[in-house]
């Protein structure tokens, strides 16, 4: 049996276990290392398959009703969620408030990315917006992605395209592994040499399984001037205010 085939079989085993009984952190890291080498495989599709099987068994019988009070608690939780996750532009944006604002903006970005393909031709796609920006902006800078360390992200291709004048930019990715958004999301950080040591949050995004190329609009939370680098990390769903890393990809104009 070839090494690649054996590796693939091991990866399928890991994906199956991940979707059914869970796997250790060590196995999760191994799975993440192997996935880029087998781009037709992803954890999300195995989890969806398990969910459909679960539903099939579930709908064959009766559901256990929720206990008294749980539904009320969930409704209270929903109300609290709305309060903290809907953007309120009139508030002064403090460091603490950034977390909620960033999460709301990130959810909006993800919703737009998911929503965009469903729209009619009158709504431009990210690809169209990128093309427009390249054609119209006079100060476009471009930088290709490079893996920060040898390993799982070596095969990633693509670039960042940014315009200071328009404060607009896009990221292109090929062969970036799909993420399981219930577990993690990718987050962009923009290093602006004129700011303090903290990079600017460029927004969170997802890479869906099976996508050939993904174009993601950049959503910089603060104005950026002559960025020195764009960095990608993997964070908890919704992103973080300050990243502990590790840095996965970097693009330096």
């Amino acid at each position, binding site marked *: 049996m070839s090494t690649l085939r054996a590796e693939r079989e091991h990866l*399928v085993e890991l994906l199956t276990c991940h979707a059914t009984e869970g796997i250790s952190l060590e196995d999760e890291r191994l799975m993440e290392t192997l996935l880029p080498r087998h781009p037709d495989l992803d954890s999300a599709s195995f989890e*969806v398959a398990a969910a459909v*099987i679960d539903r099939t*068994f579930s709908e064959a019988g009766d559901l256990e009703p929720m206990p008294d009070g749980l539904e009320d608690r969930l409704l209270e939780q929903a109300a609290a969620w709305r309060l903290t996750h809907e953007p309120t532009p009139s508030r002064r944006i403090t460091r603490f408030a950034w977390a909620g604002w960033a999460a709301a903006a990130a959810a909006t970005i993800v919703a737009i990315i*998911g929503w965009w393909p469903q729209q009619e031709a009158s709504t431009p796609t990210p690809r169209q917006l990128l093309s427009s920006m390249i054609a119209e902006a006079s100060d476009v800078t471009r930088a290709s992605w490079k893996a920060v360390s040898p390993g799982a992200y070596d095969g990633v291709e693509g670039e960042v395209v940014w315009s200071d004048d328009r404060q607009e930019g896009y990221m292109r990715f090929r062969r970036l592994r799909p993420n399981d958004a219930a577990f993690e999301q990718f987050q962009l950080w923009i290093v602006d040499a004129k700011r303090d040591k903290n990079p600017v949050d460029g927004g969170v995004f997802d890479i869906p*399984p099976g996508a050939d190329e993904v174009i993601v609009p950049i959503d910089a939370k603060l104005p950026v001037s002559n960025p020195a680098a764009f960095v990608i990390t993997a964070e908890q769903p919704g992103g973080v205010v300050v990243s502990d890393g590790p840095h996965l990809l970097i693009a330096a104009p």
Partner: protein
Amino acid sequence: MEDCISLYGAMVHSLARRFLGNAEDAEEAVQDAFTDIWRHAGRFDPAIASEKTMVMTIARRRLIDRQRRSHRAGKVVALAPGDEVETRDSGLAVDTADEVSRVAQMISQLRPEHRRALQLSVFEGWSHSRISKELGIPLGTIKTHIRRALLQVREMLQARGSLSEGVQA
């Protein structure tokens, strides 16, 4: 959000009870699961799977992670010989009938021991080693049954146009 609770609350709660056993843990897990569901509500794409399946997927992820962290031993369920899992006919809601009815047909064609292993793993949340011990079937065979079922359903969904599209650039 209120509709989500009304539509899927019982399903998520039943799932949590099966996986965690303890009522208090299950209730807490349901609340955590719904937080995840709301967080990802904006990325729902009906081309990938139905809304109900996506809710189930997100809830399962949360529960499997929680279960793994707590190293749950699992409840004991005695299986009577010849236990069958009946699957419904096509009298399902229109928006879910396709994927569930096709999978139900696939499951009904499995050999009883394969079906039982799949039920214990995916539906009851048992570990593969626990299933192997309870059913007296080698662990490798259990893993093969479960792996093949997931691959088969995955291929079925992909052939239908789900999973392979996702977000288009």
